[in-house]
């Protein structure tokens, strides 16, 4: 339990009053606070560092914690000082604010820690001075983006309890790592995309001559083979597209998405080709359609994250790209005009019109310099050199912005992947801590009741055996114990639960209640077999006293009487009946069940073996020594 939340324990315990009227059984006793309530205050200031300032300084800002009477809550009477259990470093900045009126943000501070401190002292971050404000806002935005990524990836990772077939299919398509089928599908489609692209390329390579005719490209020489390959690929792509269409949660949105358009454009030429006959005029247009087959290569973007990042970068840098394009266009037009008029004089000039000069300007500005168009006049050469110099500048300026955008997005993605990888380990650790706290309760329950049993047995010196828990822990456990009593069910750990489920399905145990002795034996064997199974799962709690007791064959169930015959599912009533079989004259005023299972050495209790009945009279003979309203039945 977090230390901060421990301060809320009184509240949680008080709220437990809400369970009281509903509970059927009496509550366990509360742990007593043995130490008289001492002064909890630590005599320190802001974690040990003493700051001194005038009261009027603080009262300059009456709507903050330090400037108002709220700080009286933190006043320590004994040392006559105000104690704050907070970070002294940040407190320095806070106090400087009161002194100078300007709040500064130290760059070495973590942004969320700083925000927490400001929130605690009741200071609005807007008051941060101009000198530090931009830094603060930048860091804050970065942090928010990072947390947003976290949330997004969390939402994506949530496994929904039950998905329809369609939803599982969609998930498999979107994230191939969810199942092996999805992975297989992913790799198969990737393979076929590659095959298709390679066939498209190889189709046009000249394949060697057939004697008696000119050199043919491979596509025409082995046209049947290529046609079959193409058909196969298009089949796969069509099936994939139809499956995605079927599985998509919103079909309309899916159809409009870029990837689906690429899919359609990639397979359309084939079908159009099938439909069209070998009509001479139309086949010319058809040939151009085949160009669109190259779009199949874009299908790879589903398979490559880098491609997707690139696409996303370009999309997010649209403004910078637009600017680049615009400035380039401006420069091209200017220089083309100038070059045209400069070269107008020279004869046989290639610069026949301004649009013709565009080609020269573009080639020069991008420093390609093909040399097919060259200025001949001096003026032309001068302007040509200015053109190439300025080209370098105009292109070099927006490119770093695009590059930095790409780098930021790429790193963000890396971070997301890293976080996803670490998340499993993190969650595992959190789960361990959680089960640790719930197991702590189960252990202390057993140990605590063992202590009580030992006390009642009149062996006070052994009562202190077992782990000593802090007061807060014992209060927390008492709270959980009250909840158990209210609902008449007990907390057990996962393994026990699984076993109980198995056994109850195997042995039909809960419903029969027969007071006869023979079935009592049977009942005790069933419940005891469970008991003994329970014991072997407990870690050895290192109780030296148990070694002695184990000689007397122990697994004791503590039973105090109660009057709840109507609770059929309660173990207590079952044992009550079983008890009745043995000792009818026992006082049964109140029954509450608490289960103690003391780990016995493995030699004595191999799992599943039911203890021989003669052992049962053993502890029972101890009964007279115990207080009369406590009945012990050995659960074997």
């Amino acid at each position: 339990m977090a230390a901060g939340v421990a301060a809320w324990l009184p509240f949680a315990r008080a709220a437990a009053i809400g369970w009281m009227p509903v509970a059927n059984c009496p509550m366990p006793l509360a742990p007593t606070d043995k130490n008289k309530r001492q002064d909890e205050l630590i005599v320190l200031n802001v974690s040990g560092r003493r700051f001194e300032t005038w009261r009027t300084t603080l009262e300059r800002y009456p709507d903050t914690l330090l400037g108002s009477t709220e700080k009286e809550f933190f006043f320590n009477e004994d040392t006559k000082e105000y104690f704050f259990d907070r970070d002294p470093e940040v407190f320095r900045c806070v106090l400087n604010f009161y002194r100078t009126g300007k709040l500064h943000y130290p760059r070495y501070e973590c942004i969320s820690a700083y925000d927490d401190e400001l929130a605690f002292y009741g200071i609005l971050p807007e008051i941060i001075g101009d000198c530090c404000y931009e830094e603060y806002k930048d860091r804050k935005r970065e942090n928010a983006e990072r947390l947003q990524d976290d949330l997004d990836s969390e939402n994506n990772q949530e496994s929904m309890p039950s998905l329809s077939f369609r939803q599982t299919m969609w998930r498999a398509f979107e994230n191939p790592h969810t199942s092996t089928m999805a992975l297989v599908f992913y790799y198969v489609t990737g393979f076929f995309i590659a095959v298709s692209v390679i066939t498209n390329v190889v189709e046009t390579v000249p394949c060697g001559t057939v004697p008696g005719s000119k050199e043919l490209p491979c596509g025409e020489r082995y046209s049947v083979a290529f046609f079959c390959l193409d058909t196969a690929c298009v089949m796969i792509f069509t099936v994939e597209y139809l499956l995605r269409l079927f599985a998509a949660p919103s079909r309309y949105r899916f159809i409009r998405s870029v990837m689906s358009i690429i899919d359609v454009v990639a397979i359309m030429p084939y079908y159009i080709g099938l439909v069209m006959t070998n009509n001479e005029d139309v086949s010319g247009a058809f040939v151009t359609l085949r160009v669109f087959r190259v779009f199949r290569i874009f299908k790879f973007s589903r398979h490559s994250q880098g491609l997707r990042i690139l696409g996303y970068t370009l999309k997010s840098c649209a403004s910078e790209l637009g600017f680049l394009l615009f400035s380039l266009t401006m420069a091209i037009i200017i220089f083309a005009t100038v070059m045209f008029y400069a070269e107008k004089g020279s004869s046989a000039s290639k610069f026949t019109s301004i649009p013709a000069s565009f080609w020269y300007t573009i080639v020069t500005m991008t420093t390609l310099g093909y040399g097919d168009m060259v200025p001949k006049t001096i003026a032309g050469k001068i302007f040509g050199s200015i053109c190439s110099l300025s080209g370098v500048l105009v292109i070099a300026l927006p490119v770093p912005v695009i590059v930095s955008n790409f780098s930021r997005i790429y790193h963000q993605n890396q971070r997301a992947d890293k976080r996803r990888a670490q998340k499993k380990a993190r969650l595992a650790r959190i789960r361990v801590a959680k089960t640790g706290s719930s197991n702590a309760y189960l252990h202390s329950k057993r140990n605590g009741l063992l202590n009580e049993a030992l006390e009642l047995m009149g062996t006070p010196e052994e009562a202190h055996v077992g782990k000593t828990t802090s007061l807060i822990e014992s209060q927390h456990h008492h709270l959980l114990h009250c909840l158990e009593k209210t609902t008449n069910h007990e907390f057990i750990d996962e393994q026990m639960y699984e076993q109980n489920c198995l056994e109850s399905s195997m042995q039909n145990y809960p419903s029969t209640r027969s007071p006869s002795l023979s079935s009592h034996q049977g009942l005790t064997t069933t419940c005891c077999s469970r008991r003994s199974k329970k014991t072997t799962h407990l870690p050895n709690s290192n109780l030296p006293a148990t070694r002695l007791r184990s000689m007397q064959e122990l697994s004791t169930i503590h039973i105090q009487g109660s009057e709840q015959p109507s609770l059929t599912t309660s173990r207590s009533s079952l044992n009550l009946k079983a008890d009745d079989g043995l000792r009818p004259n026992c006082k049964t005023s109140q029954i509450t069940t608490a289960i103690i299972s003391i780990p016995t050495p493995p030699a004595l209790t191999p799992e599943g073996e039911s203890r021989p009945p003669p052992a049962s009279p053993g502890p029972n003979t101890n009964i007279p020594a115990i207080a009369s309203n406590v009945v012990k039945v050995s659960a074997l």
Partner: protein
Amino acid sequence: MGAVMGTFSSLQTKQRRTSKDIAWWYYQYQRDKIEDELEMTMVCHRPEGLEQLEAQTNFTKRELQVLYRGFKNECPSGVVNEETFKQIYAQFFPHGDASTYAHYLFHAFDTTQTGSVKFEDFVTALSILLRGTVHEKLRWTFNLYDINKDGYINKEEMMDIVKAIYDMMGKYTYPVLREDTPRQHVDVFFQKMDKNKDGIVTLDEFLESCQEDDNIMRSLQLFQNVM
């Protein structure tokens, strides 16, 4: 001392920016779009003075100090909203799901139904629960069970409450929680509480039945010395 509301909007941030070139403005425009999304409303609530609270509740100054420190640590803004409340309460019950019961608790604490619990509400309720008379405690509990605050508890409300309590137990219980366990529990409760068998429990019936039951009386005194 009342609530102090400090709100800031992106408008202020725009005022803070010195004038920049068109090109830079173009870039900042993109940034501001994100800032608008970060727009927050900071609500700071400061509680009544220590003396007033001491007079209004049954706690001593020291106890109030301790309570406030814990409160302020979890909720620096001075109010608890339902989410935080549920999170805090869930920490005590790692086995099961405490959110439903925390929801009902929250509405029992939030007497003015504003959606947030201030320190005064918190301390007032605690004062009743820990230091109040039996009558007050029972009345508070009745208010907790009466979900729609109409003055009567009917079977559905009781079912909801009992189901919420059983939810806190979680899945791994012994004996295994069955579907009708809560309903049986509620039936027992109603048999006991509903004197005139009209299907609803009024405050008087509740008080009478609880005072007749020794178990309940005893358990109400259980948390006497919690603070």
